């Protein structure tokens, strides 16, 4: 059943005692994954989460804490087939000097946080701590990126990869999703790339039956999202934000 069990087992057993003592299950995962994922937002965290659910059911069965045991924990099979990363060429053009430029879409979430920080600087966003950015990417449900690959004339497969767009969505995997941090390099704007990014995100979410897709748009991009099918404040639903007390 679990072919890769042996590899994951030691890590899970290390986590196992912490899940008993900590209130919030997720607290156990971040310290373990932090050394893995600072530079690249890796998706390895998913497998730890799934295995812990399996062990939790066994523990509860043994301890006879049976308030929630009529329903079984989510099977790993149905979870693993959910988020297969997609990668494909969205557009391709040949420049006058023979260089071929490809715009590559990817939903694998493999983002270099330094590249992302540089991209956010280009669009004028305030700087955010790199560790927080990395954590946010790691724990987002979908991270969609656009890379521009420039292949000089005559050299196949020796492309220079540059991050030119990103969008991510957080979700509870069942009902709600919120899209955050949509950014496209200014020199690549106006070509429908942002639209493609969002449409792919929406498609991925709706195909998993996640029907409440929301986002918080700055005033200058409200029209952009309206054209993509978003409605402002539908039926009086508004977002409120927490204000820290003095």
């Amino acid at each position: 059943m679990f072919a890769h069990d042996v590899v994951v087992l030691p890590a899970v057993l290390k986590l196992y005692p912490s899940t008993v003592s900590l209130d919030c299950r997720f607290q156990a995962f971040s310290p373990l994954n932090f050394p893995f994922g600072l530079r690249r937002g890796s998706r390895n965290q998913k497998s730890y989460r799934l295995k812990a659910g399996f062990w939790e059911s066994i523990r509860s069965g043994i301890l006879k804490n049976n308030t929630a045991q009529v329903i079984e924990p989510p099977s790993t099979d149905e979870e693993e087939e959910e988020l297969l990363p997609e990668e494909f060429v969205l557009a391709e053009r040949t420049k006058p000097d023979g260089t071929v430029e490809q715009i590559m879409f990817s939903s694998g979430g493999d983002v270099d946080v330094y590249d992302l920080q540089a991209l956010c600087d280009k669009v004028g966003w305030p700087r955010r701590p790199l560790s927080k950015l990395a954590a946010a990417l790691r724990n987002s449900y979908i991270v969609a990126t656009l890379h521009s690959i420039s292949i000089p004339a005559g050299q196949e497969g020796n492309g220079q990869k540059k991050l030119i767009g990103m969008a991510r969505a957080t979700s509870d995997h069942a009902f709600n999703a919120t899209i955050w941090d949509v950014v496209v390099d200014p020199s690549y704007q106006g070509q429908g790339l942002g639209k493609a990014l969002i449409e792919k995100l929406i498609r991925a979410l709706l195909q998993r039956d996640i029907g409440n897709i929301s986002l918080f748009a700055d005033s200058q991009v409200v029209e952009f999202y309206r054209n993509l099918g978003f409605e402002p404040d539908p039926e009086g639903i508004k977002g409120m934000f927490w204000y820290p007390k003095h």
Partner: protein
Amino acid sequence: MAMKGRAMAAAAAVHGGYPPTKLHSSLPSPLRIAARIKPNTAPPPISISTNPAHANLHHLKELYAICNHSCQRFPNTDAAGRVEPVDVLKLRTAIAHSSVVVSAFTKPEFLTNQSSTGAEVTSFTGIGGYWITKVAPVTPANGTLIGFGRAVSDLGLTASIYDVTVHPALRRRGIGRMIVQRIVRMLTNRDIYDIAALCSHDQRPFFKACGFGDDTLGSTTMVYTRSPSSYSKDEEMISAGGKLLLVPSPRELTK
């Protein structure tokens, strides 16, 4: 225990001095004074748990049904305005992937006490009996689920609060606020301060009282609502509660 005492004090601070008007008219003045000291709007003993395992799915489904709460943004409602019951499998998935899950429990007798018509009688005879039952603690194991809230977060920058519900018989007593404050505290403990809550017009005063407000950056909340224009085979769609949503077709950019 300490949490309970603090919560009682907080509730007393907010509600002290403002007994409900129905007590005013029906109680003689000595009891009116007693009611002032121990207002009827104080919450019963509450146990709050942040352990997702304590959120029993069946009880939660019942709580949602009693509150007529749907997890869908635009739910299907029948003629009487009741939303359809929540899909328990989806609820299980949602809870499993929520960063913060808060459940509030109380003793079953506090729930049934509300439905008794003699509200003044229970507060009078309850001064002795209430004190005794107050001593024995509520735990998630022996309590009834009467409140819930959860938040989804990327554990780095942002979080969104969903599905805050309190049993209708125990509303306006600070329980919802306790739940939201616990969620916020769990998030701020992990350095997340960008906390959003999508709410309807009626829920705004509640979140305002919990310390939420309009976005300082003036952003507009937008929800995907595009429906298919025709019911042709070419248009992929999914149903989300009462709404049909158009799935964007996979298209290539031509350039």
